[in-house]
C-alpha cells in the first residue's frame, strides 16, 4: 500500500514537473557554431572573409575595443545574448558572431531567433521583467517599439559608445531619435523588387519592361499565355511590398515627395496606383482565385515552382527564393516609370540595439561596435545576399547587384514609413493593417480606404 502511494506521488510530481517545464515557453538559447568550433580549435572562414581588410579604414575612427584584432578583445569576456526576429537572418547572425569571436574569443555569444508576429511583445515583456537579451533587433524608427523603449530608458544610448563613422545620414535614419543613436543599422537595403523567371521570359520572348506601360502590357501578355503574371498573397504585408514599387513606377515624382512629406500618402497618385493594382487583380494578373492564397510561403512556392512568371517582394527574399528552388533561373528589376526612371523603395535595414540593463555592457558594446564595423557589415550584407546600401560593400550576388543597378541610384521613401511617422496618434498604421486587404476583396473602395486613412494622418 505504501509502495503504491509512493509510486503515485512520484508519478504526480513528475507529471507536475513536466507540466511546468512544458509551460515554460522559453527557447533554449543557441550558442553560435563558430564559438563552439573556436573553442574546439576549429576555424571556419566566415562569409565575406576576404573583405575583412577594411578599405579606407585608416580614415574611419577605430571603434572601441576593435583596434588590434584578437588582442583587442582579450580583456573582454563573459556571455551575451542576442535576439533576432526571423530565421532568414540566422545564418548571417552566425557569420557575424563568428567574425566577432575571432576578435573576442573570450566572449560567448548566444542567440535566439524569435520568429513571428509576437516578437515585439515578447521582447518588451522580457525587457520589462528584467530577462531581456543584451542585444536585440528592433525596427528602429519604423515602428513604435524602439521609441517606447527610449521613452522608458530600456535601451542604451549608443551615441558615444559606438563608432558610427561608416554610416551616412540615410543609413542612420532608423537609428536616430532626438539626436541620439539607439541602434546599429545594417547596410542591406530593405527594398522591394520584381523577381522574374528568366527561362520563362526567354522561352516566350518577353522582355524586362523599360516603362510602366510596358510593364502593364507585359502583365497582359503573360496572362494571355495562360500563365499567372504575378504571384501574390492576400496579406497586407505582401501587398504593401507590391504596392510600393508599383506606386514608384506609377508616379516617380510623387513617390520622391514622400521623403519630406511634401505630398500626402493619400494624394491622387497613391489612390490611382492602388486602383491600378485592384484592376490588375480583377483582370486576373495575380491568378483567378488569388484571394485564397493567405500564406507568404504559398506565394513564394507559386513563383519558384513556375506557376507564376513574376513575384513582387522584398529584397530579403533573394536567398529564400534560391533555397526554395536552387534550379530556378531568376532575375530582378524595379518597376520603371513612364519616362524610364526607376528607384529602390525603402531604407537601409535596422539592426541591433543594446539593452540598458545589460549585465555585460563591455561585451555588448564590443559586439555593437563589431556590427558597426566595415568587417561586420560586409559579413552581414554578403551572407544575406542582400542589396548593398554602401559603396564600400559589394553585394554578394549578381541578383543583388541587378536590383541595385535597376534602381538607377534613386532611393524612395517607403509609403508605409510615412504612414507610421506622420500619423496623428499612431493609429493610421492600424487602420492600414485592418483595411488594406479589404480594398482587394472589394469590401471597401480605394477612395473609402484613402479617405479613412487621411483622417488619421497629419
Amino acid at each position, binding site marked *: 500500500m505504501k509502495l503504491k502511494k509512493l509510486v503515485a506521488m512520484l508519478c504526480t510530481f513528475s507529471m507536475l514537473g513536466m507540466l511546468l517545464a512544458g509551460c515554460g515557453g522559453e527557447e533554449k538559447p543557441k550558442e553560435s557554431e563558430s564559438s563552439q568550433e573556436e573553442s574546439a580549435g576549429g576555424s571556419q572562414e566566415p562569409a565575406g572573409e576576404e573583405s575583412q581588410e577594411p578599405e579606407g579604414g585608416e580614415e574611419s575612427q577605430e571603434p572601441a575595443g576593435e583596434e588590434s584584432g584578437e588582442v583587442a578583445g582579450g580583456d573582454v569576456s563573459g556571455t551575451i545574448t542576442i535576439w533576432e526576429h526571423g530565421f532568414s537572418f540566422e545564418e548571417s547572425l552566425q557569420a557575424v558572431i563568428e567574425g566577432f569571436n575571432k576578435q573576442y574569443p573570450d566572449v560567448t555569444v548566444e542567440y535566439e531567433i524569435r520568429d513571428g508576429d509576437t516578437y515585439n*511583445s515578447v521582447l*518588451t515583456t522580457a525587457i520589462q521583467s528584467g530577462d531581456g537579451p543584451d542585444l536585440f533587433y528592433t525596427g528602429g524608427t519604423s515602428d513604435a517599439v524602439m521609441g517606447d523603449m527610449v*521613452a522608458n530608458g530600456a535601451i542604451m544610448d549608443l551615441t558615444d559608445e559606438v563608432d558610427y563613422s561608416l554610416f551616412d545620414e540615410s543609413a542612420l535614419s532608423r537609428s536616430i531619435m532626438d539626436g541620439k543613436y539607439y541602434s546599429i543599422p545594417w547596410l542591406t537595403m530593405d527594398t522591394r523588387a520584381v523577381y522574374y523567371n528568366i527561362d520563362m521570359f526567354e522561352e516566350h520572348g518577353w522582355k524586362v519592361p523599360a516603362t510602366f506601360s510596358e510593364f502593364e502590357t507585359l502583365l497582359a501578355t503573360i496572362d494571355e499565355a495562360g500563365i499567372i503574371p504575378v504571384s501574390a498573397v492576400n496579406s497586407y504585408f505582401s501587398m504593401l511590398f507590391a504596392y510600393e514599387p508599383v506606386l514608384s513606377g506609377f508616379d516617380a515624382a510623387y513617390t520622391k515627395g514622400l521623403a519630406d512629406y511634401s505630398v500626402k500618402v493619400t494624394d491622387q497618385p497613391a489612390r490611382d496606383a492602388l486602383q491600378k493594382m485592384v484592376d490588375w487583380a480583377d483582370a486576373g494578373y495575380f491568378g*483567378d*482565385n488569388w484571394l*485564397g492564397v493567405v500564406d507568404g510561403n504559398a506565394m513564394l512556392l507559386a513563383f519558384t515552382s513556375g506557376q507564376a512568371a513574376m513575384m513582387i517582394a522584398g529584397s530579403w527574399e533573394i536567398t529564400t527564393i534560391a533555397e526554395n528552388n536552387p534550379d530556378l533561373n531568376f532575375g530582378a528589376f524595379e518597376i520603371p516609370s513612364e519616362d524610364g526612371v526607376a528607384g529602390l523603395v525603402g531604407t537601409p535595414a535596422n539592426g541591433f540595439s543594446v539593452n540598458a540593463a545589460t549585465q555585460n555592457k563591455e561585451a555588448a558594446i564590443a559586439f555593437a561596435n563589431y556590427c558597426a564595423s566595415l568587417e561586420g557589415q560586409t559579413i552581414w550584407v554578403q551572407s544575406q545576399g542582400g542589396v548593398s546600401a554602401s559603396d564600400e560593400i559589394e553585394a554578394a550576388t549578381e541578383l543583388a547587384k541587378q536590383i541595385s543597378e535597376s534602381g538607377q541610384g534613386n532611393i524612395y521613401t517607403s509609403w508605409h514609413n510615412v504612414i507610421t511617422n506622420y500619423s496623428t496618434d499612431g493609429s493610421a498604421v492600424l487602420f492600414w493593417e485592418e483595411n488594406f486587404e479589404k480594398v482587394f476583396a472589394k469590401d471597401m473602395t480605394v477612395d473609402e480606404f484613402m479617405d479613412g486613412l487621411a483622417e488619421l494622418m497629419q
Partner: protein
Amino acid sequence: MRKKHAHIKFILPGFLFYTCFVVLPIIYVFGLSFVEWSGMGPMKFSGLDNFIKVFTAQNFAPIFFHALGNNVKYLLCVWLIITPIQYLLAYLFFIKIPAHRYLRFMVFMPYVISSTIVSFFATLIFNPIFGFLNKFLEGIGLEQLQGAWFGDPKWAFKLMVMLIIWQGAGSGIMIFYSNFMDISKDVMEACRIDGCTEWQRFTRILIPLSLPSCASIITMSSIWALALFDLPFILGGRNGGVSGSLDFANLVFYRYTFGNALSGRSELGFGAAICVIMFIFMMTVTVIQRKILKKFEYDT
C-alpha cells in the same frame, strides 16, 4: 481539533496552486484592463477608456462585433450541426453498423493530429494556385468549379466547420459512445422484450439516458467555440480572411494586443479589456446553458 482542520490541509495544495495559476492571473487581467500599457514602462490608469473604445471606437467596434458575430455563428453550428453529427455517429457505432470498428478508428484518428497541422495541410489542399483540389478539378475537366476556397467568403466559414468536424468530431463521438455503453444492458434488453422499435429505443431510452454527456459536450464545445483561434488564424490569416469571414474575437484580441512585426504596437491594457469582455460573455453563455441543461439532468 485536528479533525476539524484536516479538510483545510487536504485542499490547501490544490487551492494554492489554483489561486496562483488561475485566480491571480484572472485578477491581473481585470486590473490590466483599466490601464494603458504597452508592456514597457509605467502603467497609466485609464479608467473605463479601454472598454468604451471596444464598444464605441469607429475603427474598432464594427470589427470586434463582426468577429463576435462569427463566434456566435460558430456556436450555433456547434449546437445545431456538430454536436448532432457527433451524436448520430456515436449512435451508428453503438448499433454496430457494418465495419463499425474500422470506421470508429478512422473517425477518431484525425483527432490526434494537431489542429495546426490539419490547418496547414488544408491550406495546401485548398490553395487556389497549386492546391490539390483545384488541380484535381482541372484534371477532370471541371475548371468551372475551381474556387478561391478559404479566400471566398461564401465558402470559407463552411469549409472551416467541415474541417473541424473532420478533425475534432472524434472526441465528442467517443464520449457519447462511452455513455451509450454505460447504459444498463437490462434496460436495453427490457425494451427489446417489450417490443420497442429501434426508433423508440433511440428516442425513449438512449436520448434521455445520454443527456449527461450531452450537457458536458455542449458546455465544453461552447467554451471552445467562443475561444476559437488556431484554425481560422492559419486558414484565413491574422486579419480573419476575406471580408472577415474567418475573423473571431480571439484573432481580434491577438492583433490588437500584440501588434505585428511591422508596426510593432502592443496594447496590453486594451487587449485585457477584450479578454474581460469575452470572459464575461463566455461566463454568461455558460451559466445560461448550464441552467437549461440542468433541467435535463433531473431526468437521468
